[in-house]
């Protein structure tokens, strides 16, 4: 962040920071009154709050809501300059939608930290003071890396019937479950609206149903032997209960029916 002014573009996994201005615009929701007008919502310039950005915006009403005469609750903005909207659950299935949200979240958290750090005369003191926030920012950055590499994997040539589709499902589940788990981050940084958060959650549920019939196949693909798993519960053949029972008798305590210690401790007590 501190080198951005120098014109030196960040590379590798931090390259998204080079687009921080655009990512700061990654706004999906502005609650404001707009004059009644014929639908579809007219193109409007960005609210004055963002004079710097010349991006044009399309404004659409909430899907399914009856537009009231004086105000549209702006469910989202589509910033034509490259950031797109998530007005339908299915949008969350598109890799770039997801990546955009994760990049915006990481960038915004990072900028917020940098801004707070700049308030400290001694940067090292500021770093120590803000270390808890910095840890969360680092987590957001690392989660972005994992999501982006998962998406990159999908660009590779993956053979086999239905294999790529399963990996796509897992990629969406991974990203959306993270988004759901860290919803507070995404909402507080304005990357998504509560509405979009709940759309994502609805989608997650349907993804679980889609993965369900393939769950056993997906874990069989790890190709672990029963020996390596070392688990009666995880046996390949699923023959759990008889084996659990069998294992129980191997315990050294079962070497004798009457346990060691009975005569010296239990018996006297029982006979008292």
């Amino acid at each position, binding site marked *: 962040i*501190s080198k951005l002014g120098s014109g030196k573009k*960040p590379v590798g*996994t*931090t390259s998204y920071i080079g687009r921080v201005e655009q990512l700061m615009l990654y706004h999906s929701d502005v609650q404001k009154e707009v004059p009644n007008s014929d639908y579809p919502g007219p193109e409007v310039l960005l609210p004055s709050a963002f004079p710097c950005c010349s991006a044009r915006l399309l404004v659409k009403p909430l899907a399914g809501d009856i537009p009231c005469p004086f105000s549209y609750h702006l469910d989202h903005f589509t910033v034509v300059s490259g950031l797109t909207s998530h007005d339908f659950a299915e949008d969350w299935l598109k890799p770039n939608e997801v990546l955009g949200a994760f990049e915006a979240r990481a960038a915004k958290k*990072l900028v917020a*930290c940098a801004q707070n750090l700049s308030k400290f005369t001694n940067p090292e003191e500021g*770093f120590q003071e803000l*270390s808890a926030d*910095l*840890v969360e*920012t*680092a987590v957001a950055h690392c*989660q972005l890396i994992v999501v982006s*590499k998962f998406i*990159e*994997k999908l660009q590779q040539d*993956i053979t*086999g*019937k239905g*294999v790529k*589709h*399963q*990996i796509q499902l*897992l*990629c969406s589940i991974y990203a959306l479950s*993270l988004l759901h788990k860290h919803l507070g981050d995404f909402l507080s940084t304005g990357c998504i609206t509560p509405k979009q958060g709940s759309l994502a959650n609805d989608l*997650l549920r349907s*993804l*679980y*149903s889609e*993965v*369900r*019939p393939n*769950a*056993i*196949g*997906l*874990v*069989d*693909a*790890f*190709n*672990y032997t029963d*020996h*390596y*798993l*070392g*688990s*009666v*519960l*995880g*046996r*390949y*053949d*699923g*023959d*759990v209960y008889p084996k*659990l029972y069998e294992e129980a008798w*191997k315990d*050294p305590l079962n070497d004798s029916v009457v346990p060691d210690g009975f005569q010296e401790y239990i018996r006297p007590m029982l006979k008292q």
Partner: protein
Amino acid sequence: VVDHLAFERNKTQFDVEEMKIVWAGSRHALEVSDKMARLVASDPAFRKDDRPMLGRKELFKNTLKKAVYAWKRIIELRLTEEEAAMLRTFVDQPAFTDLHWGMFIPAIKGQGTEEQQQKWLPLAQRMQIIGCYAQTELGHGSNVQGLETTATFDPKTDEFVIHSPTLTSSKWWPGGLGKVSTHAVVYARLITDGQDHGVHGFIVQLRSLDDHLPLPGITVGDIGMKFGNGAYNSMDNGVLRFDHYLDLLHLPDRLGSSFFKDQLRMKGNIRVGPPLVGYLGLESLLQFFIFAWSYYWALKVYLTWKQESFSLTERVSSSFLRLDGISLFPRCLKICRDRIKFTCCTGYQNVLVEISTRDLTETFECIFSYANSMSWNGKDLGCLVTREGKYAQSSVPRQLVYGTMVYVRQTIVRDASSALARAVCIATRYSAVRRQFGSNKGSLETQVLDYKTQQARLFPLLASAYAFRFVGEWLKWLYMDVMKRLQANDFSTLPEAHACTAGLKSLTTSVTADGIEECRKLCGGHGYLCSSGLPELFAVYIPTCTYEGDNIVLLLQVARHLIKT
């Protein structure tokens, strides 16, 4: 065998065999892992189900037996290094070999010079020495720069003296250190000319190769029982203290070093330190002295006569033959055809530094490097410690010393996906077998895997296992790319590699540790049984959150990188 999960497998909508290749990374990798897994699973010597019932000593002995048996099988079957590594993975019992192959050898490969690698790698790869990685101390772990062990260069005697100045400087935790390792890569503060030049790696012999007794000046033992029954208690994590230790007995065996060892050893446990005189019988000292001087002059005459290049590995090294503080052998100059190689004969093979290029002429005057050979090849390695004890600053980023750490961390990320996959595999299969509630009019109860709550907890972990697998593949590419760039003296991506491996090690190990515990709970009460495999998996896995860098400290390193970015 009845497949109680057949009805589940019939529902699968994709080609599982192809997915196995995606998971393994390639068809070849799948074949190797499949072959090794079956080899281990079919050999009764690698039985694991009895482990939770063994006491500490039985478990440790069981580990030694398995590790040595595995090594024997590797030799017998002439397995490749890749197959051998896979076989050790599937033996699935923490042992000293993990650190020997996973840390000691990579450290030498990553930081040793050509000559050091020629000297130590063959011994290590034939397991004629057993190494560990002694970095962490009782008082310092993540803060590598805070390590207190010292390696003081003594220009008078031309040797390094390794010492544990405080109790908290005791080396603490290294796997294999307690009872098995004969050598260690020890990280210590290089002190010379009264200056502290920071942490450097040294190869130090800990135990005699004859009777396995700790060498004079070495105190070494196990640090005690760890979390959970079985689990990591199969490993001898050790404590190590140096008392002004000189690597006295480290003589190349070819030179009849057993003679010296017997002499030194016969006089009982010698405390290393100031002049040895007084501890040894005079007559053997005289013998020793006469032999040494005659050997020296014979060598000197030979060299003068031959004036050819000679390999220092045939030299008795001076620091190991110190009597009364007098160095018997001055350093040696190695003159090869088109190159001038300076290699100190004192500990020259023991101080691990791969350092920067620097025009040799500039260092010619300072004569000797202490840690490596300088070769006249246009990008010569700079001097590190001169004969007079001067420290020549090297221009290579310090991070290079972390090369091993970056390598290890990318391995940890891959291991995270494997550990999480094991837990998820167990929980998923059991959730398909287990039925609870939901039955009506005599129908079967509902499979636990059909409950949305089970899916909402389990499927993100399943997705995470695949996510970590793929990011681990990318990280391995990144590490190889960085090491390739280093060959071309391009250090530009080192900070990125350091930040990525640190951050992803932290993220993946935290999620995996929590994920294994979540999978245990997903199996209900039976997940608490040792026979479920989950308690052991958890107990063995959770140290990853604090070793190789505490996860929170690593995230702060990532944040520092981002803010600087």
